[in-house]
């Protein structure tokens, strides 16, 4: 549970010996009772917010009849039937092609984003071009254009050149979708490389490759990894582009999921199992990036 550590350092200022004055001040307001109440409230709200996720996981292990009861059957026997159903035991429709499409498009587009964004971020932070702030805001402004405003020409183009239902076209779309935010995140992480270290390395006559490997990479690596994970999540989640640009061959997992509910008979446990399976990669990626999630999502504006 190393992911839980980020909360720890932030609590240090309150407990450090330098804040004796504060401690005395707080004792007047009875901090223990105060914090117990706050902790209780926080825990109640945390459980409330997590309950749909917990319910989703629990229901996915119930049988269809136990899943659809009112009041809910919390203690019903657990079974893997819903997962077997999701993987097509009776219907014969396997979700694997769509899951593989999602993995392919998310991983390859993320790789492409890194290839384009790392040099760009380098030219915006470590050896910045002139007017680099203007370039940054150009990148950001492209992200602010809603996908719907460009999707029709992209669709028409894909149809004309025969790229509809082609995973490579989707990969290019996801790359453009994530590139601006990746440049912003990456710039903020590369800007953390101390200038003195760069100068010292240059004076010592280190070449660019050596500086990249020995000076920049160690400082920026966690940030680059977090950027990659966030880009992966955004691509994996995407629905609109995938729905319009893909079909039976290149359809991704979210597209599969929208066509999954037939409305016939009982399907609740199956839907929950599907939601769990499809969300697992995002949950893992998100918790892996937890330390840098805020900095990434706020485009580096918040540390």
């Amino acid at each position, binding site marked *: 549970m190393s992911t839980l550590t980020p909360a720890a350092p932030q609590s240090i200022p309150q407990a450090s010996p330098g804040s004796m004055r504060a401690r005395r001040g707080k004792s007047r307001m009875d901090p223990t009772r105060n914090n117990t109440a706050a902790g209780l409230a926080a825990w109640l709200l945390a459980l409330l917010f997590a309950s749909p996720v917990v319910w989703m996981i629990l229901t996915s292990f119930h049988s269809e009849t136990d899943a659809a009861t*009112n009041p809910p059957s919390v203690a019903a026997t657990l079974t893997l039937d819903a997962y077997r159903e999701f993987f097509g035991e009776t219907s014969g429709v396997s979700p694997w092609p769509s899951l593989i499409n999602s993995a392919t498009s998310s991983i390859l587009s993320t790789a492409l984003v890194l290839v384009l964004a790392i040099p760009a971020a380098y030219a915006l932070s470590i050896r910045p071009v002139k007017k680099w702030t203007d370039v940054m805001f150009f990148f950001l402004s492209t992200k602010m254009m809603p996908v719907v*405003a460009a999707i029709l020409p992209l669709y028409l183009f894909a149809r004309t050149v025969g790229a509809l239902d082609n995973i490579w076209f989707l990969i290019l779309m996801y790359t453009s979708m994530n590139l601006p935010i990746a440049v912003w995140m990456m710039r903020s992480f590369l800007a953390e490389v101390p200038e003195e270290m760069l100068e010292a390395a240059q004076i010592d006559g280190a070449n660019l490759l050596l500086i990249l490997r020995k000076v920049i990479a160690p400082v920026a690596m966690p940030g680059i990894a977090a950027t990659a994970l966030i880009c992966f999540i955004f691509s994996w989640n995407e629905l609109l582009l995938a729905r319009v640009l893909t079909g039976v061959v290149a359809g991704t997992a979210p597209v599969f999921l929208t066509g999954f509910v037939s409305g016939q008979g009982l399907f609740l446990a199956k839907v929950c199992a599907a*939601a769990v399976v499809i969300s697992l990669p995002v949950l893992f990626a998100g918790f892996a990036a937890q330390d840098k999630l805020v*900095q990434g999502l706020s485009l580096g504006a918040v540390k």
Partner: protein
Amino acid sequence: MTTATARISRPGHTAAKPARTAKSRERALAWARRAPLLPALLFLIVVTQLPFVVTLIISFLNWNSLSPTKTAFAGLENYVTVLTDPDLRQAIVTTIVLTVSVVLASLLIGLGLALLLDKKFIGRGLARTLLIAPFLVVPVAAALIWKHALLNPAYGLVNGILTWIWSLFGSSTPPQLDLLSQAPLAAVVVSLVWQWTPFMMLILLAGLQSRPMDTVEAAQMDGATPWAIFRHLTLPHLRQYLELGGLLGAIYIVQNFDSVFTLTAGGLGTANLPYAIYQTFYYANEYGLASAAGVVVVIGTIVVATFALRTVFSLFKKEAAR
């Protein structure tokens, strides 16, 4: 491109006459600096800017792919339709209502949660992890769960809990909600607030923890009440974080498609502009009209984005100045 290079070479160097080689060397150096930037820049211009120019052109055409022979220049006709057609006007209103209510509600709840998480208590890290979970469920999956597992009127968890609580008091006639058909937009709002509150909470928590503690401690020493400290110290400090969270959230929620598509399929007045545009070109094949609506969304986003850019820029300048 030559003008750009000329502008970048420093005026001081152009004065000297033998500076010809120095100047070209400097130019080469400037291009060497720019080179790593160019692939990303060119890629983005081709994939995002060009299509938008095409959208702009199509928006002035009368183009329905089902009757391709009637394609003609339409002037502002499509824009008039966007602003007068009752369905599309409803979509504009829905987009605004949806965005404003989701952003405000998730900001407020996120602020409350951030204030609680800023205190020390047992299992704080775990509580924080649990609170992030909603943000890490695939949006389509989250919408399906809300639709079928939580809000379903017959066997959803919400009504199930109501039945259970009422049965504890011996009642067999519990109140049962049917949010999806009685207040579908509220259902969309609730599910989106659930997903976006963690995002706001994370940004505000980071803001709280960057607050200079010495002034807070001094205020406490002077006997300031917690409310006074919150009102006069914490809130002013959080202002730019509130703005940042709200504006980044707004940019994403304006574009929301997944929830509307999955929860209500745009029925009963829940179709927002992205969904309406999708239907206009994907099912109705009205390319000109869909493009005009797309341009309207962009104009709306630019208005929000101008404020967003200003906020991001003020935080950014502070960081760049360090």
